[in-house]
């Protein structure tokens, strides 16, 4: 990564890089501090620091936590195959549509609606929907319709889909921006079906974006608390256990260790995506340069 602008004094550029790095450091400081404390045998506020894995060991022997981990993974793996095709279809629809404003409005406004407000609205919506289906069940005698929208996995998954879809849409859109539609048109002209043109021509080129979106969905599901806690019904997710421990007993050393596990896994996954993307972009640029300037 090199700096531009030869007319600017070096110290000014260094100052600006310093400001940027400081902002990143401040944003990450709470996470780094959590990880730092999680390895201290004496916990938060102690005068001395003794490195230990003790808190991690006690976290992994916690049955409630392991159970919540299972529930969270289940939620993530149910949400994933639903939200990714939705995101793909939405991105394709956006590219082809002439009424982009409405698509953007519907797909991106969940980002702007605070979690507590959307969670509350969905909670009341599901409760009303449940009453409606119970009424239909009583009227028609089809009792299978009863309790369809009882709070549980399905309602939590719907909440997660609404939450993660905007992120999936944006990530896939970014990769789709590089794809030239003429390639699909060429494939169709050569007799490929719409599905084959998508699967064999377009998908290989946007695959990185789709896999990144999958990683983002899993990470966001693990980190989500407010909507899931309002919509989940009787089971506990990883963050709900973490938060109840934090709020009821304060930040125990186990809480620091639990928070660190979630954060580090997310950071490692995102870092891998960033590195792979950077390497691939470099390779693509080299190929483009070689095609443009074959003599060099």
């Amino acid at each position: 990564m090199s700096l531009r602008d030869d007319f600017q004094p070096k110290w000014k550029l260094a100052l600006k890089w310093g400001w940027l790095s400081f902002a990143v450091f401040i944003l990450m400081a709470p996470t780094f501090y959590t990880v730092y404390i999680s390895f201290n045998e004496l916990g938060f506020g102690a005068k001395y620091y003794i490195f230990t894995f003790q808190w991690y060991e006690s976290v992994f022997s916690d049955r409630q936590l392991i159970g919540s981990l299972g529930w969270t993974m289940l939620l993530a793996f149910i949400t994933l195959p639903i939200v990714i095709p939705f995101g793909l279809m939405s991105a394709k629809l956006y590219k082809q549509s002439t009424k982009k404003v409405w698509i953007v409005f519907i797909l991106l406004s969940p980002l702007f609606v605070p979690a507590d407000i959307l969670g509350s609205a969905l909670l009341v919506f599901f409760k009303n929907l449940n009453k409606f289906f119970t009424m239909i069940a009583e009227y028609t005698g089809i009792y299978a319709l009863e309790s369809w929208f009882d709070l549980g996995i399905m309602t939590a998954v719907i909440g997660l889909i609404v939450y993660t879809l905007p992120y999936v849409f944006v990530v896939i859109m970014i990769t789709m921006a590089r794809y030239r539609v003429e390639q699909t048109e060429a494939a169709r002209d050569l007799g490929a079906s719409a599905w084959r043109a998508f699967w064999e021509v377009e998908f290989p080129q946007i695959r990185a974006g789709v896999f990144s979106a999958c990683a983002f969905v899993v990470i966001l599901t693990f980190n989500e608390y407010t909507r899931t806690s309002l919509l989940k019904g009787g089971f506990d997710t990883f963050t709900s256990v973490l938060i109840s421990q934090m709020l009821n007993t304060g930040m125990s050393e186990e809480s620091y260790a639990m928070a660190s596990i979630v954060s580090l896994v997310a950071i490692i996954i995102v870092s891998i995506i960033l590195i792979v993307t950077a390497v691939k972009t470099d390779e693509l640029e080299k190929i483009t340069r070689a095609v443009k300037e074959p003599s060099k």
Partner: protein
Amino acid sequence: MVIFFVLPLMLTVVWSVFERTMFWMEPAFTLFSYENFFFSSRLENFISSMLHSSISVVCAFFIGFPIAIFIRRRVKKVAQHRVMLLFILPFMVSEIIRIFALRPILSRNGVVNSFLMDLNLIDTPFSVFVFTPTGVVIGEIVSFLPFMIFSTFLALEAIPNYIFEVCSDLGVNRRRMFKDILLPLAAPGLFAGSVFIFVNGIGIALIPTILGGPGSVNAGLIATQAIIALDFPLAMAVSAIMMFTLMGLLYLGHKLFNLTKLLEPIS
């Protein structure tokens, strides 16, 4: 999205005029929930949370806008997105963990105070960083700053390079460049970032709960407390008020700046 996002949010207006029963609500037309909101200390809390959010927006502008300009103008094109991705990392860590971890950092015997005392810059530790409105503002900035940087950068990215080159050739000074080029062209991004921070500042209950102390209440907290108290119409009234605030701001922003321009660089 229409069924599970637009519809529930629109229906909050209908449910907000229902009558409260012991454990639920029943169809009626009453403005009691709105009275309950507008003629009580809740309104005062709502206004003060709007004030705190506005301060956070201003702070995020002063911290984030120079960063977005720097990345767009001084970093090589190929590296710009990589630098931007550095700001994605905090988003991937749960907001709850980040906000909760701010407590031990900012508390009286926390890292910041210890650091300042070790440097002999202060004699007694500051107690304004947590359980005060300042704590709420700090929490909002740490939580939402990346969004201001993203949206502003997206708006700046749509500016063709030749505009900067022409300005440079014509000898336009930095102040005019900022006032007449960067600020107007980044306006859609600045607006989107500001709306995001403002609305989430008044809507996310967690920040005042963890960092604001007993006096700090925002719309999100009023809604969740109303649900805990089984006052569903009040929770829906608060949600409806939030929705109208958000819709009004987004409509205004779209009319003034055409917010779809923000997606042009990636579409």
